[in-house]
């Protein structure tokens, strides 16, 4: 038997106290910066994970191909790659393709081949179908129908990098210090009840939506079945995947504002709704009735991102931590304040938001904060 304990518990502690780590940083002025700081920040929370998953999402990543869908695909076999590439050539104009550059990293063992493709919609797209819907359909098709291949990133001018290892190892492997973006999120994984494999690392993505998560979505089964009715199929064997599809459905397809979508995912408790003004009660009841199957149950803190926006959200009774920091146009979200301070010691402000209240950083507006919800204020 392999001595897993030697790897996961090198000090032979009675109890290994772990949790996932999440971190996000965004320059709301849109200025791009390298991955250097976020790699240091997530590495500072090394002990929260156990080396079975690490990953990053970067926005503003591919300015030279800003209008093309960028697919990141991992292949377990050469045959898988051949099948996918022949499909991509048929379904899209394939503008450019390359293996994602990596460097030898001792901690990264047995990686799959990871490639990227810049794609343009072609004439095969049925009339009346939006480009985004067409892309979602193709991603689902590859992930459910083709063997040994997983599309794990499919947005424009953004990309996810992930795999099995500590996040700082994944960053080294994919040379992430060399990339620039205006919004980065990161994750260090401590898998609770699903396998630690390359596709199961965070972030989870569809189009330009990405999600990193600390916690457990115990409503996964219900959420998954609901999303299947809309053509989303879960293939990554991990609960967090439903959050990416849920935000795509709620915000892109159903046009709900972020604040409303947050109240679907982290719906206020019924006892809380009863105390709200009548109009708000009606809205909140309606949301719970219409979208009851997208309520996320169980402990969670997530950082959701898409172009122009980074959103931090916790479950209603905040069973997982989230700390916010701001400095000028920078917004930081983190499992622990110390990771933020490491890369930005002189924050303008740092606070702990209330459970279920979204923290939203946007390119469109200054950092949005509901002042009433600002508890635990720093001076």
């Amino acid at each position, binding site marked *: 038997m392999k001595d897993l304990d030697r790897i996961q518990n090198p*000090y032979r502690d009675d109890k290994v106290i772990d949790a996932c780590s999440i971190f996000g940083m965004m320059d709301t002025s849109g200025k791009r910066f390298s991955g250097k700081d976020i790699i240091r920040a997530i590495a*500072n*929370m090394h*002990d929260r994970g156990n080396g079975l998953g690490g990953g990053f999402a970067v926005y503003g990543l591919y300015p030279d191909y800003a209008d093309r869908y960028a697919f990141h695909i991992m292949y377990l076999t050469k045959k898988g790659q051949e099948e996918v590439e022949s499909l991509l050539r048929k379904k899209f104009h394939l503008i450019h393709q390359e293996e994602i550059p990596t460097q030898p990293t001792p901690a990264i063992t047995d990686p799959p081949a990871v490639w990227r493709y810049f794609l343009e919609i072609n004439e095969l797209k049925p009339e009346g179908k939006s480009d985004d819907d067409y892309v979602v359909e193709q991603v689902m098709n590859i992930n459910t129908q083709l063997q040994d291949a997983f599309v794990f990133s499919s947005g424009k001018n953004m990309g996810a990098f992930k795999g099995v290892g500590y996040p700082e190892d994944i960053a080294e492997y994919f040379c992430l210090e060399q990339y620039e973006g205006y919004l980065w999120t990161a994750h260090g994984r401590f898998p609770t009840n699903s396998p630690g494999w390359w596709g199961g690392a965070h972030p989870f993505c569809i189009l330009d939506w990405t999600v990193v998560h600390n916690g457990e979505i115990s409503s996964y089964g219900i959420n998954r079945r609901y999303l299947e009715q809309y053509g989303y199929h879960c293939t990554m064997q991990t609960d967090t995947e439903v959050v990416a599809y849920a935000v795509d459905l709620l915000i892109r397809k159903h046009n709900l504002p972020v604040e409303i979508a947050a109240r679907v995912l982290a719906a206020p408790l019924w*006892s*809380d709704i009863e*105390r709200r003004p009548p109009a708000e009660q009606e809205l909140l009841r309606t949301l719970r009735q219409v979208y009851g199957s997208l309520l996320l149950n169980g402990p969670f803190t997530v950082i959701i991102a898409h172009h122009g926006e980074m959103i931090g959200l916790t479950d209603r*009774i*905040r069973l997982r*931590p989230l*700390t916010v920091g701001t400095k000028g146009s920078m917004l930081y979200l983190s499992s*622990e*304040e*110390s*990771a933020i*301070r*490491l890369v930005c010691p002189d924050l303008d402000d*740092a*606070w*702990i938001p*209330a*459970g279920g209240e979204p923290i939203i950083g946007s390119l469109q507006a200054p950092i949005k904060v509901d002042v009433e919800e600002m*508890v*635990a*204020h*720093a*001076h």
Partner: protein
Amino acid sequence: MATQVNEPKISIDASGLYYRELNERLKELANNGTRQVELHNVYGQRYIGTSLNAPLEIEIHGTPGNDLGAFMDGPRITVYGNAQDGCGNTMNDGEIIVHGHAGDIIGLSARGGRIFVRDSVGYRAGIHMKEYQEKKPTVVIGGTAQDFLGEYMAGGVLVLLGLNGGGEHRANFIGTGMHGGAVYLKGNVEKYQLGREVGMARPSEDDWQLIKKLVVEFAGHFKYNADEILKGEFIKLFPLYLRPYGRIYAP
């Protein structure tokens, strides 16, 4: 054990120092005569001060990691910055003074010692604190607290002064499962904010003496005017039943 006696006051640069090394170092210093340690560039090292039972004063500059002072038995920790989650976890004796705010579950399962936080604290402050005879953990919070304050509280004292929220406390589910100890709160809360096991009363004369003593101490740590703080109304929250589950588990 080495007999060498260290300098009484020592400064440590904690940059890049792993928490295990840092806590080993503190233990050695405490055992060998050091009485004051200044830690600089602290970024998230966990369990600082854990299990120490010597009269050591630890000054922390930076952001200490989770479970600050866990199982601590005597030292005084002063944080110039914010504390993260689990501050004072199962502490037995000593003091933690935070010149900033603190995260979730502050003072969880504490069995003694005192914690003073200048600003506010996160969820589940004082969860399952307990007391026995003269051992009585005390947590004084300058601002307010988030939901589940005093959850499953079995003993000890929590004080909320409402200094940075105009006396408004927004926490819900206060004292859910509470079956011992007391919460003193400056300002007011609505009935719906309380767990069903919690009663509300005006503080008695004995309560007032305790509140005064703690407020004076709090004001001393953070340079506030104690008289100003004591001007407002306080309420006392207490458990309605001391053994709420007694009938379920021990008929």
